[in-house]
């Protein structure tokens, strides 16, 4: 063994190298404050290892990036672990970077003769931030897509060469396959390669000058191995445990696949860029223009950082530097805190985050079906999904008047943001609905409520006002019309006898069964038969209707040719609340089969594409997997 080691040493001189690496002198003994650099090297090693393995399964193109990440995360063994380690170590690296920088500044380790090393460190910091930025896009999910769009638009705002820079980064004027191949080449090749080169220089120069010791007489001197190595290893273990805990507890997020045609109102940059995001949102910064907030100010901060070794030469320079460092860090922490606070107190943002989360779950659910993911990418799964598109279409087209369980069906309140003066405070006013809440539309409860409490069901119409502030004529037609009076005058029928209550349930069951493709809704055939009799004859166990349903409404029962009643006074109830009824009604509610001249609802037939109408209707009747 010894002979072999000597043979190898003769030819490589590794013993001396190893000795130099391990037995570096540390005056004053090993200390916890020296661990930050080592933890950074450690997290970078995690990134290289996990990154290379992720590379074996990642596929950079707009139709396969999200899909391959989804596959890594959900189908490959330990994919969640490797991706989680990579995801959270990246964030740990940013935190450790800030700690390392602060420790260097506080201990004055940037001062002569270590200026060059400090500058090398600043370059390394830029590379690490660049790695974070490029990595954020690679999963090609909504979150990464929109956050990165902002970054490249900022790039485009660079004076003179902005447009060229942006096109170089994007691989063209718009995002596409080449945006991903370029970002991937940067993220997995160019940036880490550069980082390794600078890291070698950084460590070599560090070893040349030795560690910066604030008080060498604190304790007897020690060597790097094993005293400092032990402290470094324990610190690395703490980092690893933190990263593992986050991986197991939270897991690396994967939002819904990027869709340039869908707004993503939960868009935020990665948390360590939130301070910049918040800074850019201040009205006064906005006024000064994007280059000021996003390029000049951060550029100036970096320039001051780079100047610390020069400032440090003056007598008061070091104190000034430490002060600058503290103010900057406090500023960043303060802005980050403010951004988080604002978001936590913004119900609209919170609703968006919830919606984004539900969509992420939904697309996984769809992707896990046996048919897999179509070749045009997972984004088409959501684009053709009634459960996803229905609420979006409702929010855009119906929610201006209607509500869905009190909100716009995507979980957002319907609000008006009022800003009385320019740059003044914004006020958020929740709008009153001017048409009925459709959260339970077509359900037995809904049908029962229309029969027994017509005015109450449609009470939101009272919010439609004319110029004088009175209830609008169109609403009065509805709220004081024949059905409203019928509902009021027959209210006592239902309460007068328990048998009549059962009769009401039968009538409701019959009408509800009409919305189902086969007329089957879970009620017994007898109940449906009894309900139909009441609908046709108006005869109740105790008493009878003064006016029968079919005196105003027509209905062609499921599977029959004959129409009960005639098309005329009231809306037709054929397939009421079902796909066909809804499709026709939404297309043109003013048709004589429906509200006729009483109608105040826009005809959506010409406004929505057939496919959109189809998705909306299928969502409303629950026709989706």
């Amino acid at each position, binding site marked *: 063994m010894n002979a072999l080691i000597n043979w190898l040493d003769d030819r490589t001189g590794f013993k001396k190298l190893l000795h130099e690496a391990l037995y570096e002198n540390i005056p004053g003994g090993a200390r916890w404050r020296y661990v930050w650099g080592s933890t950074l090297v450690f997290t970078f090693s995690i990134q290289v290892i996990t990154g*290379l*393995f992720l590379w074996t399964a990642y596929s950079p193109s707009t139709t396969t990036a999200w899909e391959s990440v*989804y596959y890594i995360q959900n189908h490959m*063994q*330990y994919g969640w672990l490797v991706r989680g380690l990579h995801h959270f170590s990246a964030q740990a690296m940013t935190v450790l970077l800030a700690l390392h920088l602060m420790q260097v500044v506080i201990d004055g380790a940037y001062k002569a003769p270590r200026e060059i090393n400090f500058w090398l460190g600043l370059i390394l910091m830029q590379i690490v931030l660049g790695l974070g930025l490029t990595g954020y896009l690679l999963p090609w999910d909504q979150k990464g897509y929109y956050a990165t769009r902002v970054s490249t638009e900022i790039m485009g705002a660079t004076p003179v060469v902005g447009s060229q820079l942006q096109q170089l980064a994007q691989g063209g004027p718009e995002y596409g396959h080449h945006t991903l191949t370029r970002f991937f080449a940067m993220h997995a090749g160019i940036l880490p390669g550069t980082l390794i080169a600078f890291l070698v220089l950084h460590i070599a120069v560090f070893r040349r000058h030795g560690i910066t010791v604030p008080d060498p007489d604190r304790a007897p001197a*020690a060597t790097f191995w094993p*005293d400092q190595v*032990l402290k470094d290893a324990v610190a690395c273990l703490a980092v690893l445990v933190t990263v593992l805990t986050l991986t197991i507890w939270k897991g690396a997020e994967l939002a819904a696949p990027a869709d340039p045609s869908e707004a993503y109102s939960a868009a935020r940059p990665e948390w360590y860029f939130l301070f910049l995001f918040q800074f850019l949102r201040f009205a006064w910064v906005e006024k000064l223009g994007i280059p000021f907030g996003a390029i000049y100010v951060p550029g100036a901060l970096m320039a001051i950082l780079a100047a610390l070794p020069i400032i440090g030469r003056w007598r008061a320079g070091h104190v000034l530097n430490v002060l600058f460092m503290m103010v900057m860090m406090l500023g960043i922490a303060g802005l980050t805190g403010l951004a988080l606070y604002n978001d936590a107190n913004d119900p609209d943002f919170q609703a968006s985050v919830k919606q984004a989360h539900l969509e992420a779950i939904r697309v996984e659910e769809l992707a896990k079906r046996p048919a*897999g993911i179509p070749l045009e990418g997972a984004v088409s799964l959501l684009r053709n999904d009634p459960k996803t598109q229905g609420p979006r279409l409702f929010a855009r087209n119906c929610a201006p008047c209607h509500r869905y369980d009190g909100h716009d069906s995507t979980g957002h309140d319907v609000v008006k943001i009022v800003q009385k003066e320019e740059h003044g405070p914004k006020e958020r006013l929740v709008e009153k609905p001017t048409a009925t809440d459709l959260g339970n539309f077509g359900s037995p409860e809904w049908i029962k409520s229309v029969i027994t409490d017509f005015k109450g069901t449609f009470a939101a119409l009272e919010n439609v006002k004319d110029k004088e502030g009175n209830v609008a004529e169109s609403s009065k037609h509805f709220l004081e019309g024949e059905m409203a009076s019928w509902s009021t005058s027959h209210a006592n029928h239902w309460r007068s006898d328990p048998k009549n209550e059962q009769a009401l349930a039968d009538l409701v069951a019959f009408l509800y069964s009409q919305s189902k493709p086969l007329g089957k809704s879970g009620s017994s055939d007898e109940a449906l038969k009894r309900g139909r009799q009441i609908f046709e004859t108006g005869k109740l166990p105790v008493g009878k209707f003064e006016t029968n349903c079919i005196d105003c409404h027509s209905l062609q029962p499921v599977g029959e040719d004959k129409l009960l009643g005639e098309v005329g006074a009231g809306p037709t109830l054929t397939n009421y609340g079902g796909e066909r009824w809804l499709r026709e009604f939404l297309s043109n509610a003013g048709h004589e089969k429906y509200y006729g001249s009483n109608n105040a609802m826009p005809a959506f037939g010409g406004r929505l594409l057939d496919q959109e109408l189809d998705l909306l209707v299928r969502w409303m009747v629950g026709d989706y997997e």
Partner: protein
Amino acid sequence: MSQAHLELHEHPGEPRRGFITHVLAAGIGLLVGTVPAFAGLAFFLDPIMRKKKSGGGDGFLKMPVTLEALEINGQPQLVKIIMDRVDAWNTYLNQPVGSVYLRRTDKDKVVAFNSSCPHLGCMVDYKAADRIYFCPCHTSAFGEDGTKQNDIPPRGLDTLDVDIRNGTEVWVKFQNFRATTPDKIPVG
């Protein structure tokens, strides 16, 4: 320079603490380094740990040629195998996944060869003039009955199970086999 400190470190007063420090430093250092490496390695081994899903059914596919269309002892007919193919997250419907040579040897007997060369997996050509199957990669040659004609391939062409159904339909059980082995071993 370090020599002096080494001596200083190995102070006779605290050999025990020194030993523990060495062990802990090495142990924890090794631990933090191997966790990400092992996680990555386990991830990388996914393909060999993955259980293959069975296709369902008896595995026989109906060929697009009928028994009558094949001449007895005539020229072999090359037929593409069309199947659904699952590739990671995508499912491709009705994709060509391979090809077979069909040759009728008797009134109601058809022989099917997988067109992959058992030598190193290239696709073999049928040379009508010489009445042999010939591999363009390393010049493996096989007779019309699939037996090897030189020492390059380890075995003859791989025959596939054939079933004649309803008198005229030709059904083949398509399978791929490992190359290079003298024995016929199914892939996957």
